């Protein structure tokens, strides 16, 4: 039985797809058979960030409609043979996702995979609701600003009441906070909420803090999940996140302003 992880936020553009790509790659690199599904029907994006957009033949909706078998639609990652991508349809409208259809696909995938990562669309509409409905774990991606925190809070309420686990009265979805696009510098200037501020409002287990980083944009432009950029701060932060998710005790990094090295001080780098 696979564990189903939803990467969700409420607010758009906070880094869900970046996170889904990084975490699914991270889990696969650890040897777990992992599938990552793009729930953002009409706005497919995950395949670009995973760098497999030119190999898409069938998509999630094709599988739901019975127009393609699951193994025809799953794209095997070129860098890691444990990772498979189920892309979203760019042409269909959102109503093509049905609850039964999604349940069936997740059920089928569960037999073969250890982890299924669901990249949720923004908002609290149908696509987002379906992405979280079957989840066992939720990674709530939040930027350190008030509107994002508020939307995450809203999403947490929905996770607690509208999921399958909630409806069946089972153990609730495990919720994790992932703070992304964090800039200690801007926190210091008072332009951003600090980790403590966000923790105080959401009171949630902190899975990690991903710094604001140029590496993210570079990675998505070249279709490489940023976790593979091992030298980058964001890549390392995501590696930590995966290890923490798997139960390792890893101290948080990239939260404090880094002291500039002598070199940095001399050259203002």
């Amino acid at each position, binding site marked *: 039985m696979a564990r189903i992880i939803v990467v969700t936020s409420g607010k758009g553009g906070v880094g869900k797809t970046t996170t889904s790509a990084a975490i699914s790659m991270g889990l696969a690199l650890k040897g777990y058979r992992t599938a990552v599904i793009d729930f953002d029907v009409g706005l497919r994006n995950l395949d670009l960030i995973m760098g497999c957009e030119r190999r898409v033949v069938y998509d999630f909706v094709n599988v739901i409609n019975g127009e393609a078998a699951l193994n025809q639609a799953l794209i095997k990652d070129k860098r890691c043979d444990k990772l498979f991508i189920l892309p979203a349809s760019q042409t269909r409208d959102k109503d093509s996702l049905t609850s039964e259809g999604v349940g069936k696909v997740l059920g089928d995938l569960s037999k073969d995979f250890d982890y299924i990562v669901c990249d949720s669309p923004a908002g609290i509409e149908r696509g987002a609701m379906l992405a979280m409905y079957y989840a066992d774990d939720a990674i709530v991606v939040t930027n350190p600003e008030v509107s994002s925190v508020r939307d995450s809070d809203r999403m947490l309420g929905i996770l607690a*009441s509208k999921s399958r686990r909630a409806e069946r009265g089972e153990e609730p979805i495990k919720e994790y906070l992932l703070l992304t696009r964090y800039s200690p510098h801007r926190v210091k200037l008072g332009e951003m909420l600090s980790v403590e501020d966000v923790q105080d409002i959401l009171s949630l287990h902190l899975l990690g803090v991903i710094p604001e980083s140029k590496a993210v944009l570079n990675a998505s432009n070249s279709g490489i999940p940023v976790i593979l950029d091992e030298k980058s701060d964001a890549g390392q932060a995501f590696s930590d996140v995966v290890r923490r998710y798997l139960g390792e005790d890893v101290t948080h990094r990239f939260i404090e302003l880094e002291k500039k090295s002598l070199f940095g001080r001399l050259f203002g780098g």
Partner: protein
Amino acid sequence: MPVTHSESVEFSQTFEIKSGAVNLPVLKLLTSDVGKLSSQLRLKVSQAPDFFRNAPMAIDLHNLVDPNAEIDFVALVRAMRNCGLVPVGFCGGFEKHHQAAQAAGLSSLTLARQEPPQQPQATPTKPKVLPEEVHSRIVEQPVRSGQRIYVPGGDLVVMSQVSAGAEIMADGNIHVYGTLRGRALAGVQGNLDCRIFCQDLQAELVAVGGHYRISENIDDSLRGVPVQIYLQDQSLIIERI
């Protein structure tokens, strides 16, 4: 006139009316979404079909998450009958619910207090404590933005925080042991003696018996400290405890 045989038959008793107590299973309605409810009900009933077959059942509206929700009683009755249940009546709810429920053939019931069966006092020295029926509710999870909790006829205790954009209401008192950032309304049916107790007040709005105060008008010195909120001579008092 002599009493004829046929008349004597008419006068021989065919029934008696006495007050008797029956125990009914109660369907505590949490949502007004009859569609969702009926599929869950079907699942439940299928787990113990013999137990539920032709079982009379009362519908309790006290625990509705949204106490104002419109309920399609006709659909509800149909859904229950389809599961083999015999809906007989309802309790709780507002006037609009009563009319709709009666129109759907349900009668108005009052839930009896859950008194223990009268037993001969074996240990008469023990003080006799009859547990009152408790309508109060304890919530251990955070109440998040967009969520709404109402406790009819009782107190609400929240062990965790209440987020901004969340709303908690009770006919009785409200206790919040985390930070209260949302709205809290105690005594919503007009009970002016109710109070709100809270560990850390950062509320958007607090109200007792309809008298409210918005965030802007809450003194900063009262934020972040344990307080109680009550009515005195029609005015809302927020005071450190």
